[in-house]
């Protein structure tokens, strides 16, 4: 994934700062609670939600099982409609394809409609290195880009910013990217939106190349689908002459009818709306091209793998590929709410990020090995997921990969991972605890020893126990274990 996240510390350290940042905590709490309450209400409106959820899961599972077939069908349909399909195995290949396509047009700038796939591969940085400027046009993305920041939420990348912070970013940064912010500029949402509108309008009217992602790709028709709220995406998708879409291979669905499910579940799960304001669909060059000159004259689809096929090879972990990027799991996650999106070290934060990143990137780095542990396994994410991804199950599965090692597919090759480094003490503790617990006689002796020494119990523990006693008192050791009470009261009959 993107280079900007390289060298991230493990999740606990990254989260520490966020937990202490009162402004950030307040911003996140307000935003996530507002949207989670709204989501619950809009989902409750549908009597058949559980069936929609099951149907979405079934369609995605079926598609993933026959992914090769549907991708070839998609390629055929897109090609037949006048588009060109490119296959990218990894981030470098995808970046190279897009850079070459933009160069071929002779342009030095592109407009972008929010795309997680291009953030995943670090496309903006790759384009910049090739002397091409990429302008984000989604409002939240624009805020992130102007603020030299990183996205911290799937749907609301600037969720960590409040209005005053956004006003300051617009004031100081807009001028160096294009049209400056109007003076004076207040922090009223309408004023901020108008400043962004004027700034972006200039970009839309000038741009001849656009880069987009897609929420869905329909295999039978070759149709691309983008859902958005602002209309900035539609500007990108219709005004420029060349449109390049970079889409993860898991975004394909078999038939046009399948969209019926997701056009209901995605908006309600993400923005808590019955329907999103803009749904743009295009097939190849689009039917309007010949008639009135609207729509791009060239369409390129870059199908991105970047770890997805490897993820697909994992029976338990592959369900993460069902994700439709709604962000409902982020908004209900109590860990995300305190730690913020940046702590996850990826364009995919929150519970889904905790299972997606260590699969797409592997568990080799500190941050990736720590992500499966960035959860209390409370299950709130699973409960709201519109495609029923059992995130806690995958988290535990990935913890096992980190702690015990095991078989995994990397680059299409089946390899056996060794346990992650630096876990010798933990492994020894787990084993010792298990040995003790598996010998009730020894356990009982240990409990008695503890009871006798209870008066000497320290208030603060050294080592790993410090993490508990730094902020919490230890439970008081009782004078007698339950086991001993039972034996004393009822006689040791068994």
């Amino acid at each position, binding site marked *: 994934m993107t280079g900007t996240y390289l060298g991230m510390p493990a999740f606990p350290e990254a989260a520490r700062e966020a937990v202490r940042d009162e402004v950030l905590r307040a911003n996140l709490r307000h935003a996530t609670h507002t949207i989670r309450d709204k989501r619950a209400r809009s989902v409750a409106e549908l009597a058949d939600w559980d069936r929609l959820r099951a149907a979405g899961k079934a369609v995605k599972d079926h598609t993933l099982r026959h992914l090769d077939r549907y991708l070839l069908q998609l390629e055929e349909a897109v090609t037949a409609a006048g588009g060109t399909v490119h296959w990218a195995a990894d981030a470098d290949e995808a970046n190279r394809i897009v850079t070459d396509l933009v160069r071929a047009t002779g342009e030095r700038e592109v407009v972008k409609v929010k795309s997680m796939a291009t953030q995943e591969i670090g496309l903006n940085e790759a384009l910049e290195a090739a002397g091409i400027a990429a302008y984000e046009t989604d409002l939240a993305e624009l805020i992130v880009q102007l603020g030299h920041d990183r996205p911290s939420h799937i749907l609301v990348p600037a969720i960590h910013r409040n209005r005053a912070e956004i006003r300051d970013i617009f004031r100081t940064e807009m001028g160096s990217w294009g049209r400056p912010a109007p003076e004076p500029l207040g922090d009223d949402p309408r004023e901020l939106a108008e400043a962004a509108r004027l700034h972006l309008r200039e970009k839309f009217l000038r741009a001849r190349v656009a880069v987009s992602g897609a929420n869905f790709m329909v295999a039978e028709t070759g149709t691309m689908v983008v859902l958005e709220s602002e209309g900035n995406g539609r500007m990108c998708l219709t005004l420029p002459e060349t449109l390049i879409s970079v889409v993860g291979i898991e975004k394909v669905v078999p038939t046009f009818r399948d969209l019926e499910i997701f056009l209901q579940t995605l908006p309600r799960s993400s923005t808590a709306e019955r329907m999103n304001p803009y749904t743009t669909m295009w097939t190849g060059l689009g039917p309007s091209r010949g008639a009135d000159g609207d729509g791009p004259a060239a369409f390129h689809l870059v199908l991105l793998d970047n770890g997805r096929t490897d993820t697909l090879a994992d029976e338990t972990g592959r369900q993460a590929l069902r994700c439709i990027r709604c962000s409902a799991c982020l908004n209900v996650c109590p860990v995300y709410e305190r730690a913020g999106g940046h702590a996850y070290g990826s364009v995919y934060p929150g519970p889904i990020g905790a299972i997606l990143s260590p699969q797409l990137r592997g568990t080799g780095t500190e941050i990736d090995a720590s992500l499966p542990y960035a959860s209390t*396994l409370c299950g709130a994410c699973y409960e709201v997921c519109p495609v029923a991804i059992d995130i806690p199950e995958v988290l535990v599965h990935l913890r096992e990969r980190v702690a015990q090692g095991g078989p995994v597919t990397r680059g299409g090759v089946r390899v056996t991972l060794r346990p992650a480094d630096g876990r010798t003490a933990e492994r020894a503790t787990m084993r010792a605890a298990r040995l003790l617990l598996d010998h009730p006689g020894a356990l009982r002796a240990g409990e008695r020893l503890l009871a006798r020494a209870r008066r000497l119990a320290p208030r603060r523990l050294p080592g*790993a126990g410090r993490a508990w006693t730094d902020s919490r008192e230890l439970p008081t050791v009782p004078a007698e274990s339950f086991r001993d009470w039972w034996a004393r009261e009822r006689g040791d009959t068994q």
Partner: protein
Amino acid sequence: MRAALFVTCVNDALYPRTGIAVVRLLERLGVDVDFPAAQSCCGQPQYNTGYRHETEPLMRRTARAFAGHEFVVTPSGSCAAMIREHYPRIGRKAAAEGRGGELAEAAASLAPRVYELTEFLVDVLGVTDVGAYFPHTVTYHPSCHGLRGLGLGDRPRRLLTAVKGLDLVELPGAEECCGFGGTFAVKNPDVSTAMGADKTAAAAGTGAQVLCGADNSCLAHLDGLLRRADSPMRTLHLAEILAATEEEPLP
């Protein structure tokens, strides 16, 4: 009726009062209680931290200890969920890895016989008024594994509402995790503490004297935070409240 008590390792070593309360409560309701001494931990700490292989011997032990019992009752939603939800999963994985079908069979046999305390009271015994007396203001934190893993629903609240003298006040944000999460509490201490602090603040805001739960692990975390802050609020396991009567009030 006869039932076996699965007391859980945390209750056994640190919160024996919970186990004693379950015994008194069930016996008061006419249940003969067995305590198979061969029992130990369900293996949840190992499993949830990623050490599935270390879990397997404990799973075998648990299944053996309760092999002869039709009803196994435990005062922990978390441990009940471990046995009901994850034992079958671990058994299937072991079989897929070629370690015979013995674990899978043991799991399949044990899982449906395990009941969390409030399930056993409401569903099996069919009671919500257990004859308890506890004249205090109480707020209830439904721990995640009981709430979402087992789907306990309003069983705990129905039991509490029927307690004589008890004033039950709603906990704002009740369904949010308290931040314990097993080894999460030490692996991510800052986030864990922040979550727990919000939970205890919400509990204190209700004006309740007692923060009640049905999982001693969550309560240990919350109690640790309350005591560090010198808060007058105390934590109690649901079983202790249900066991208290006018003749034998809580100490």
